């Protein structure tokens, strides 16, 4: 992934940094994409479990809901920067190193899954309980209800939440860059901030803004397309 590229002198214009910038950009995309996949899977599981065992759920169980809720809240109350550092040993154990884009996926996933889990739980709560009851009256199992009722009915809300989370990843991945994960955040700090190259700083900001805009508008479009079909 990170081939060693020649670093231009500090005072060079930003166009001389295009190769490095591109590399940082792809690193960011890589981090965001992979953490998103893991977070969506983990967060979906957390969200469904919270909803199903929560008050008024299909399998209400406060011995699951209580501890899980606390765990999720702990995960969400830690500032991401702190979490990054606290998780360093865990990351090393899983990935083998605590440096680089791949290593950043561990704290990104662990940091965002509780958030996305709550987003999922909230989206599922928006589903009219009457529809779940209707499914129960037809003899649906809990698995049927989750797969065939809850998730499809909550899809627009889930996609909106996923967009929100994706945008948050861009933010978090930049922060991870600050402690050695690479990507645009790392680029901005290393070449923009530390070498006083304002042009590079601005270039990174512009790229981040465009990336976020793009993710948000694609997300909105998908949500609208899904909601419109109904």
């Amino acid at each position, binding site marked *: 992934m990170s081939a060693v590229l020649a670093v231009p002198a500090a005072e060079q214009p930003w166009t001389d940094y295009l190769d490095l910038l591109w590399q940082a950009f792809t690193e960011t995309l890589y981090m965001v994409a992979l953490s998103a996949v893991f977070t969506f899977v983990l967060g979906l599981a957390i969200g469904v479990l919270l909803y199903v065992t929560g008050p008024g759920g299909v399998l209400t169980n406060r011995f699951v809901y209580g501890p899980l809720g606390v765990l999720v809240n702990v995960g969400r109350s830690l500032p991401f920067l702190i979490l990054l550092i606290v998780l360093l040993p865990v990351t090393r154990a899983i990935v083998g190193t605590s440096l680089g884009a791949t290593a950043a996926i561990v704290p990104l996933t662990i940091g965002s899954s509780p958030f996305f889990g709550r987003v999922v739980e909230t989206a599922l709560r928006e589903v*009219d309980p*009457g*529809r779940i*009851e*209707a*499914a*129960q*009256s*037809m*003899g*649906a*199992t809990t698995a*049927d209800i989750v797969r*065939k*009722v809850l998730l*499809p*009915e909550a*899809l627009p809300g889930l996609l909106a939440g996923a967009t929100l989370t994706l945008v948050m990843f861009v933010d978090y991945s930049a922060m991870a860059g600050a402690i050695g994960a690479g990507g645009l955040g790392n680029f901005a700090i290393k070449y923009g901030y530390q070498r006083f190259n304002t042009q590079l700083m601005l270039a990174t900001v512009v790229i981040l803004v465009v990336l976020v805009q793009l993710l948000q508008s694609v997300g909105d479009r998908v949500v609208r397309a899904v909601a419109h*079909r*109904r």
Partner: protein
Amino acid sequence: MFRTEDLVKTFVHGTSRIEALRGISLEVPQGEVYGIIGRSGAGKSTLIRCLNLLERPTSGRVLLDDEDLTALAPAELRRRRRRIGMVFQHFHLLTSRSVLRNVEFPLEVQGIDRARRRARALELLDVVGLADRADDYPSRLSGGQKQRVGIARALAGSPRVLLCDEATSALDSQTSEQILALLAEVNRAFGVTVVLITHEMSVVRSICTSAALLDDGRVVDSGRLTDRVGDPASELGQLLLPLDAAPAADGERHVLLTFTDAVAGSPVLSRLARDLGVDVTIRSGGVERIGGVEVGRLQVALEPATGGGSGPVDAEAVVRYLSDRGVRAQVHA
């Protein structure tokens, strides 16, 4: 086919207890259109939800074909629920699925393969008159159409009984009549027993064959409508065909009478007047079609026929005369 034995349901919210059902024992015979009527808060919604155990009764039993549903393990209960279709006031269709796939849902849950599912769903959409809307999403349908889909969905698994929870309350009166006609048709064509709850007496009048009147968690009156309406003491009868009984004036003898079908078309009263020499004046009452049968309730005043015998009318003799001719009568104090 459906029977409840001493159903009790108490909701506890913190320190307050709401006794929704206080011992309900009912019997719904096979093939009937059974109405459960009552004011809001009478417990009818809780009762119908107890029939398929969407609501667990606090105590008491629910029997479907002599099998106690409350004693079943969850998996068994799910299988039994397939014999019980349910139609909801607010339809509860899945917005993420087309009309066709909504109707397929119960079959999908039962693990029936796609081709058979599709065929059955299309067949039912045809029954409810929405075959041409199969690929539309529910949001594009009117309330009445949504309820038709709800009925098709409830029938998809070939249930033996259909529970209707205020199925027409969210619809305008004309649409409501069409939906009731459809339910009556389903009952007739497929032999599906229908249990419906409603707060509107007109619904009971138009399609029910039997009914139970609920008040404050208890059954006040129940039975076949033709029977109830013929019982002058019946509260259901009074609601079905209100008789605003007026007190008798001095010297008058009043008789309350109820009659059904065959009698309604014959000149019983004029014969009574001739045979017993009394003048009959109708004071209040009416004749209506209830449960497909012509029924009447009247309050009549009796006086000696002009030029006839003297002294007061023998009201007991009038009651006997009418009873012999199939009219239920009683002297009104």
